[in-house]
């Protein structure tokens, strides 16, 4: 439970962070809230030789709204999402999902950009962002680029970010339709064994911890669009998926849970 030795740099700005990343290549990792990275370092599952601390970039902590688009700074804490009046009004699912991440200590440190960049398939907010059809803004040496959430999660703890890029903003459309998030876990602070996010009355459905990445449940979305009942739409939630087996759940049980919670989420979101 002792991390390997590493160097530590404090980023003065997003640009500075990006230049430090460019200097150190894949030896470096960004440190934001640290509640995923530090435990991995203590278990020696991760051993970056340089940590670039972006946790003090307060200019990247904001939640704004303009022309029906909500823009959220990458360093915005989960607790700030949870308690945002703007989100409660315009994108309540994001606030609601943020309130279920970890425990209060984690939510006061953890950041939206950090959890997306970490790309843990068992995390809550990546799936929420996926169901909401968000856009992720990444800054690199050449400037900013926009990445659709559907293109962002590329593999197990892997994202479309280059080694010298950092997330600076997340944009979501103000949402209107019914929504729901179902998180099934054994202890309040644990990751989801299975989670299901439903946005826009079933137009956006995503699954947590059902594969190597957070997954868009396209078959469910299509069934809902075609007028299927919640039960019929949920029946296809796990089709073709290869969920993991771990101490909490074997793959067959996870598939079962995905169907159960997809049905519950769809019903709660207003799908009959």
């Amino acid at each position, binding site marked *: 439970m002792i991390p390997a030795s590493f160097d530590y740099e404090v980023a003065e700005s997003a640009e500075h962070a990006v230049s430090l990343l460019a200097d150190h290549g894949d030896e470096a990792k960004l440190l934001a809230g640290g509640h995923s990275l530090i435990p991995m370092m203590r278990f020696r599952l991760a051993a970056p030789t340089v940590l670039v601390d972006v946790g003090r970039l307060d200019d990247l902590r904001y939640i704004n709204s303009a022309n029906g688009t909500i823009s959220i700074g990458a360093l915005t804490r989960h607790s700030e999402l949870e308690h945002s009046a703007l989100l409660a009004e315009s994108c309540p699912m994001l606030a609601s999902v943020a309130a279920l991440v970890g425990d209060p200590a984690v939510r006061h440190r953890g950041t939206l950009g950090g959890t997306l960049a970490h790309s843990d398939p068992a995390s809550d907010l990546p799936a929420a962002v996926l169901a909401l059809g968000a856009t992720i803004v990444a800054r690199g040496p050449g400037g900013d680029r926009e990445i659709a959430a559907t293109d962002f999660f590329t593999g197990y703890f892997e994202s479309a970010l280059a080694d010298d890029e950092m997330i600076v903003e997340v944009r979501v459309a103000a949402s209107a339709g019914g929504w729901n998030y179902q998180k099934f876990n054994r202890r309040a602070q644990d990751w989801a064994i299975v989670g299901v996010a439903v946005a826009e009355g079933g137009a956006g459905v995503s699954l947590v911890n059902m594969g190597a990445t957070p997954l868009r449940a396209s078959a469910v979305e299509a069934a809902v669009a075609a007028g299927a009942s919640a039960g019929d739409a949920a029946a296809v939630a796990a089709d073709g998926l290869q969920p993991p087996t771990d101490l909490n759940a074997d793959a067959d049980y996870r598939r079962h*849970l995905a169907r159960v919670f997809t049905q519950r989420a769809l019903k709660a979101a207003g799908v009959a």
Partner: protein
Amino acid sequence: MTMTDDPATHMGSHRLRREDPALLTGEAQFIDDMSLHGEIWVGIVRSTEAHATILGVDGRAALEIDGVTEVLSGADLAPLWGEGALPCAWPVTDDMRDPAHLPVATSVAKYVGDAVAVVLADSRYAAADGAAAVSVDYDPLPAVVDIEAAVAEGAPLVHEDLGTNESYTWPLIPDPKAVDAAFAGAAHVVSERYVQQRLIPAPMEPRGVIAAPGVANGELTLYSATQIPHILKVMTAVTLDIPEHKIRVVAPSVGGGFGCKLNVYAEEILCCALAMDRGVPVRWTEGRSEAATATIQGRGQVQHIELAADADGKVQAVRVKLLADMGAYLQLVTPGVPLLGAFLYHGCYDVAHYSFECTSVFTNKTPTDAYRGAGRPEATYAVERAMDSLAVAVGVTPEEIRSRNFIAADAFPYESCAELTFDSGDYQAVLDKAVAMADLESVRAEQAQRRADGSNRQIGVGLSSYVEMCGLAPSRVLASLNYGAGGWEAATVRVLPTAKVQVITGSTPHGQGHETSWSMIVADKLGIDPDDVDVLHSDTAISPTGLDTYGSRSLSVGGTAVFMATDKVLDKARLIAAHQLEANEDDLEYFDGAFQVKGTPTAAVPFAAIAFAAFTAHDLPDGMEPNLEAHVTYDPPNFTFPNGTHIAVVEVDTETGNVDIVDYVAVDDCGNQVNPMIVEGQVHGGVLQGAAQALYEDAVYNEDGQIVTVNLGDYLVPSAAEAPVYRVASHVTPSPTNPMGVKGIGEAGTIAATPAVINAVVDALRPTGVTDVTMPASPQTVWRAINEAQGGAS
């Protein structure tokens, strides 16, 4: 003695714990807060194999790391302890097999986590880096993981030289023929097999050790996060052949133990041996993942229990066969743990005939040892589960089957079929109170409705009536069980010249609140403020005699010693007062902090005046020694027998298998209560720990003997968010065993909760055909049980 909520009388009041401000503000000093000049750090290389020959230890890469000074194999270290091996103090039978257990293995590693080499370094970080860099060459041997497989024909052997995996078989069968006859004539026979999974104790603070030598005089101070500084001192002296009077053991603030710090560990002996050899302080701090295998685990039994009952469900005989998992070695009291439950498999029921036999087995896993309740939770689980099965067989409610079998309130003192004398109790009154509080009538109506509706949220009710033996222990009884020490406790009450009081206790707290409770006892007897009483403990230089804290013994044995020492102080004070008042001592009464002549309040001597007079010694009775101080060593004449009934109400999501505890009622009889707030705290924590075994916790090993639950993400210690809303009450029958009438409460919740919760889960699932659920009843386990019962895929 009266105990009231009157603030003028402290005993019986919800007095806040004086320990808490320092603990809550971070002022309290734990091992890891200390540092000693010149200290060196130990990093331990632990076996990654469950069973393997150690072909070689290569420390070259570790020695390249800045700060690493030495890499030592077990063979390198062997001269430091010579013939000395880690002690087992409880050879329960004369022919028990107790393999030599060295602090660091020399030739064969016997479990994942077994120490195989040691790194010395100048910092904890360097020690960890160094330990990770040591390369050990293993030649794997077949591992014995499952305890039933361990006793099968042809099983691989954990200890080749013993020729068997059995450590001992211990029977308690007063009249075998009567037991057989009862089963032959029984109208109902219940026969069940239960598995007690292994548990990781996981106290908030893992272990830590600093051994500091006094080179000039051959002295040694051992600082350890231990429950047992006194026992540790004796054992360190014996193991390392250091004169006992040269050793001082200090337990600073200790962050919980639950039994796992009731031991003499390899790291303690290792650090002491190195400190004496090198002449510098040597220290080690355990990591959380390291603790999963380096610290003892709890439970680990396969239980076979049979009840023979007549047509009305009255139990005539109980027959138990136990397989108990010792792990790879016998730690301090490993073999005795099953014996602490051996006398209680008939529970709180009036049963005539009894048969118990335990076979204890070596496996290639971390040693087991005492864990909160130690033997008694296992016993209670078996009999309380079986009683529910009997209730189903007879066709009555769980409360009715218990009522038909309870030891009657007028039967105490009660001679049990296992040859114990139960002190006091009113088990029916306790159960009636719990049933009323839980409003079982309404709960069962709701249950019936949901069953009728085919709801996917089924309700279940689980009862658990328990009795435990606490107040460890009468020394002569321990002798009859072959335990290597006594069961007494020591206390000194010392009145200072200004009438402030020091209490020195041999009972070593690690979270229980001794300072608060002991001060309340003394203050009430002396008629002074508890804040004027200091309580000293946990340092053998301050408190030289004691037998420490475990087995819910502190109040009923250690507290009684304090109570009796205070009486002795008062006896002497009375003589001084009589001398000063020129009165006969028999004419004096002690009231409101002063001695007065009965009926003459104007003639009074306050306690403060007596204290000062004892100090100046200017005018004491002829021949009286100066000062006011008394020492008592109290050996209890019997155990105490706390009891209670707990009721869990659960809701099971039959689609997911998820279990929620929606109500929890605990009614306990722990005798008189010194501080009901502390009693409630013990019940709350105990219940959650018991519920944790039922629903969450499991030390999971794979078939190769690799443990897979080595962090608190995988090993599911529940948090406050998972805790039920406890509804706690008491029913007091004072124990006649000791003058305060106290029994003990430290383990009650853990003992009662596990079967209550599982009985509730099984009750909820009864319509699905499920009759048993293995622990922990995780959502997946429950879901598969339902599927299996309904003939579907499991």
